[in-house]
Every structure is written in structure tokens, then in C-alpha cells.
């Protein structure tokens, strides 16, 4: 993929990074989102080593301890789960698995789906028909059945789970991309590129993809939530991630039965999912503007005062 040779980019916007950074500063919401995501990322990396011990230390007497008990260590601020393990610590430790599954599944499905969608939208009717019917097929394959089959045959592991979730999400990206390609490929600048001799690859990735990308990013950020929750549903049915591995989804599904008695068990991981999704989405909305030359002023103007 020669998406964009970095040289040309550098050549015309030498301070690309600083520009982006400035635009980020200009959007308070996106900035908070970015900071939050960086934090999450750091926690994902250090979490298991740092708090792994604490997060698995059981204490049946302190089970379902309520949150906001400032007397105890910070790890207990969100309360404790049914085995008396500190929720905050568990959420931190679970970050790694959660992100791995979610990011992996979303990235995989988005990449494969987008690629196939581009191909389908830009190639012969035959190829298009094959790809699109394949998408229909996946779409009508209940995700649960895929899960049971894959996990049964290949065994349940984070990787397989990611795979299952990825497969089920391919059709959205595929169909969305293709629909957009059908329209965009008729645009004049695409034809201009063809006149210059640009290969299909270049046209697809350099000219068409950037136009579709914002929509796909929006979808992908929302899919993050989808995947994390789907993973929780699978856990509940016994075919997802299983203890002692933890993910936010699993924590939610474990807290499910306590919803009316100890809401915090599933609330905090749920909140983590919501906040992550929201941050990703704010960031993607910001990115949509930052990467669109026609809209970019919205951010660049904010930096300096108008007038």
C-alpha cells in the first residue's frame, strides 16, 4: 500500500506533527479524550505487571465492598467484587486484554472489510458479486454460531476470540466502503487521477479511501464498544474470555447478577467502556476535521483569537 509516501507529506507540511498538536490543543474535548486514551494505553501496558497480584488477591469477607470507602487503599475506591478483589485494580489489569481484543478485532475487521469493500466497489461485476454475497453470508451467520464453532474447534483464547469478533464485523465496513466507492469513483478528481495513469491501487487508497475514511473511523470507534460488549455476552454464555483472565466485558457479565444489589460490580467496567468509546469517538470527530482541509479552519481558528 503506497498510501502516502511520507516524503511528500513532510515536504509540503514540514511541521505536520506540531500542526496536529496545535489543532488538538484547540479542541478541549478531543484533548481530554486523547489524554484519557494515552492513560488507558499506559495502564494497558503496565497494568498486569503492576497490579496483577493485587487484582487477584481474594478476600471473601470483603466481598462486594461498596465504593467510595476512602479509608482503604485507592485500589478499593471503586469497591470490591464478589471475591473481595479491588475493582479499580481489576479494571486496570483488565485494560490490556480488553484493548487487545477490541483493538485487534476492530482493526482486523476494519482493514479486511475496507479492503474488500474497495475492491468490490472498483472491480468487475463478477468480483463485486462474489465479495458482496460473501458479505451477505457473513452478515447472516449469527455471530454466536461463529463463536461456538471457532472456539469449539480452535479452542478459546484471546486470539481466537478476537478473530471471531473480527469476522462478524467485516460486513459493515465492507458494505459501507463499497457504497461510498460507488459514488466517489464517479467524481471528477478520480477520473483526473486515472488520466494521469494512477493505478487502481493508488486511486483506491490515495483518492477514494481518504473520503471514506471518516465514516469508517466513526464506525470503528463505535465498534469498539460493540466488540467489548459482545465479548461480555460471549463470556456469559461460556464461550468468551473466561476467568481468571479478565476483561471489562467479563467483569460486566460477572457483575450482571448483582446489578440490583451491588451495582458497582458492573458499573465501573461499563463506565470504562463508555468513556473509552466516547474518547475514541471524540478523537475521531476531531480527526475528521483535522484531516479535512475544507474543515480544518474550525480548529486552526480556535487557537488564535478571531478579530
Amino acid at each position, binding site marked *: 500500500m503506497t498510501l502516502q509516501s511520507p516524503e511528500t507529506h513532510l515536504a509540503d507540511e514540514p511541521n505536520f506533527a506540531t500542526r496536529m498538536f496545535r489543532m488538538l490543543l484547540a479542541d478541549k474535548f478531543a484533548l481530554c479524550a486523547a489524554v484519557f486514551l494515552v492513560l488507558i494505553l499506559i495502564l494497558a501496558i503496565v497494568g498486569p505487571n503492576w497490579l496483577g497480584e493485587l487484582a487477584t488477591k481474594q478476600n471473601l469477607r470483603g466481598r462486594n465492598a461498596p465504593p467510595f470507602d476512602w479509608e482503604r487503599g485507592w485500589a478499593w475506591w471503586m469497591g470490591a467484587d464478589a471475591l473481595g478483589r479491588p475493582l479499580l485494580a481489576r479494571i486496570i489489569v483488565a485494560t490490556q486484554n480488553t484493548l487487545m481484543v477490541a483493538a485487534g478485532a476492530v482493526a482486523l475487521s476494519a482493514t479486511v472489510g475496507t479492503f474488500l469493500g474497495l475492491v468490490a466497489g472498483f472491480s468487475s461485476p463478477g468480483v463485486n458479486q462474489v465479495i458482496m454475497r460473501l458479505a451477505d453470508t457473513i452478515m447472516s451467520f449469527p455471530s454466536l454460531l461463529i463463536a461456538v464453532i471457532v472456539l469449539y*474447534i480452535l479452542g478459546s483464547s484471546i486470539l481466537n476470540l478476537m478473530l471471531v469478533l473480527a469476522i462478524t464485523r467485516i460486513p459493515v465496513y465492507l458494505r*459501507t466502503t463499497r457504497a461510498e466507492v460507488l459514488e466517489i469513483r464517479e467524481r471528477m478528481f478520480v477520473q483526473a487521477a486515472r488520466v494521469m495513469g494512477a493505478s487502481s491501487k493508488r486511486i483506491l487508497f490515495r483518492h477514494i479511501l481518504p473520503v471514506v475514511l471518516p465514516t469508517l473511523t466513526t464506525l470503528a470507534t*463505535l465498534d469498539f464498544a460493540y466488540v467489548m460488549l459482545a465479548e461480555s455476552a460471549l463470556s456469559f454464555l461460556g464461550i468468551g474470555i473466561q476467568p481468571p483472565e479478565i476483561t471489562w466485558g467479563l467483569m460486566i457479565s460477572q457483575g450482571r447478577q448483582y446489578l440490583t444489589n451491588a451495582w458497582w460490580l458492573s458499573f465501573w467496567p461499563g463506565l470504562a467502556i463508555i468513556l473509552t468509546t466516547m474518547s475514541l469517538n471524540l478523537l475521531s470527530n476531531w480527526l475528521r476535521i483535522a484531516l479535512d482541509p475544507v474543515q480544518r479552519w474550525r480548529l486552526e481558528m480556535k487557537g488564535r483569537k478571531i478579530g
Partner: protein
Amino acid sequence: MLKFVRKRAIASLISLAGLIVMVFFLSRLTGDPAALFLPVEASAEMKDQFRELHGLNDPLLVQFGRYVGDVLTGDLGESLRKARPALDVVLEAFVWTLWLAVITMSLVAGAAVLVGSLAAFRAGGFFDRLSSIISLVGASVPDFWVAIVAIVVFSVNLAWLPTSGTGSLSHWILPISVLFIRPFGIIVQVVRGSMISALSSAYVKTARAKGVKSRSIIFIHALRNAMLPVITVIGDQAASLLNGAVIVETIFGFPGVGKLMIDSILQRDFNVVLAAILVTALAIFLMNLLIDLAYALLDPRIRH
């Protein structure tokens, strides 16, 4: 047009057949229904007899041949567990799911398009921020939370609505409301994004120069141009409802195809699984066909 539909129908039938073949063989790799139908204490002999009775002892290919033969005569087999024709079982459940999906998606589509468009019109404004937060929470909140909380609040505490089940119109309110939330959240965001691009197009300026009302600019000029990804995503969400809104069906005791499918998968009631997939797949294929026709309807440049 007719030619397009015919070609499409043939291709769809082929993929449908492929789907069934795949499910047939793959599902049979995932365990023995006899062990699940009979109690753990059942003797090997009993299990064997069960398998014999249901033709599960034959080589897979023989079983497959028989299945294809039956399907061609319109017989999708019997449910192992329910001793009824699988198709009847599935259709009964599918009708519920279909209604649930159709009603929910119509409401979602209308509401999300409205909210998303207005949010895009004043991107960055108060309404935009508010609707973003609401829709994002909606898209990422676990549905059983909403379901249980809704039951506690509206049925137990306020006693306005029945907790669950079917029967009257009021039974539909909670399940639909719960199902509404996530697709609404997702579609609002897609509409918003797509509308922002559409609203910055030159033809919007023309419309303004013509003195067209903001309302028409948003909902007539820009919206139609922004609809391609929107209907695609609506389709995707509808498909996942058709494939079964498992949690909602489970909690609200709604006799839909989602729960049926899960139960049948977990019990390895293959005929029901296959029939359910066949029926939902047909619905989804049909829906995708409609969506593809809608593309052409919406955007004349796509028509060939």
C-alpha cells in the same frame, strides 16, 4: 432492473446454499446432540439408539445427502428437542423478531436521522455535544443494564408497564425501547459525520442562494447525499436485530428467534439452527437487496 434482480437472486441462492453447507458440516463438528439431549447418566447404548433414531450415526455425507433431499422437497427436518418441524418452530419465533426489528428500526432510523442531522447542522454546538454524549452512551451501554433498570423503574416501582412477556401492546414498549438505544447511538453518529460533509458541499450554497429553508437544506438537499453510509449501517443494525436480540429476548421473555437460535446452538439442535439461519439469512439477503436498490434510488450516479 429485472435482470439485476434475477442475477442477484441466483447469486444469493448460491451463497445461501453455501451457507447452509458450511453450517451443516461445521456445526456437526461441535459436539454430539445425543449427549445433550439425554441426561449425563444415560448409557452409551441409549445414546447410540438416540443417534440411530435421528440418523446421526450415518456418515456425514449420507446425512448431508438426506438433508439436501429433504430440503429440496421443502422439509427442513424436525427439531430434536421439540419433536416439531424445525421450520414451524423457527417461523413462529421469526415473526416476533421481524416485528420487533421492523418497529425498532423504523423508530431508530427516523429518530437518529433527525437528531444526527440537526447535530451536524450546528456541529460543535450545544445540541451537537448533548446528542453526541447521549448517543455515545447509548452505543456503549450494556443492554442488560438498561433492560433491568427499566424493569425496576417502570414496572416494579412505577408499575406503568408489565415487566416482560407478550400479550398486549404495552408489552412491546420496554423491549423496543431497550433495543432502540444502541442502534440509535450508532446511527446518530454515522448520520452526523456524513451530514457534516454533505452540508459543506457547494450545492448547499446554491440552495441557500435560492432562499431554501434550513429545514429543507438539511433534510432534502444534504440528507439524501449523506444517506449512502447511513442506510448501510441501518441495514447492518437491522441484520443484527434479525439475527436475534438475544439479551432483550431473554430478559423480556420475548419468544423471538435470537433466543431460539442460542438455545438450539447450545443444545446442538442442528435442524433448528439450520432452519433459523436459512430464514434469517433469507431476510437479510432480501434486506441487502433492498438496500442496494435504495442506493440506486438515492443516487442517480450509481445507477447503471
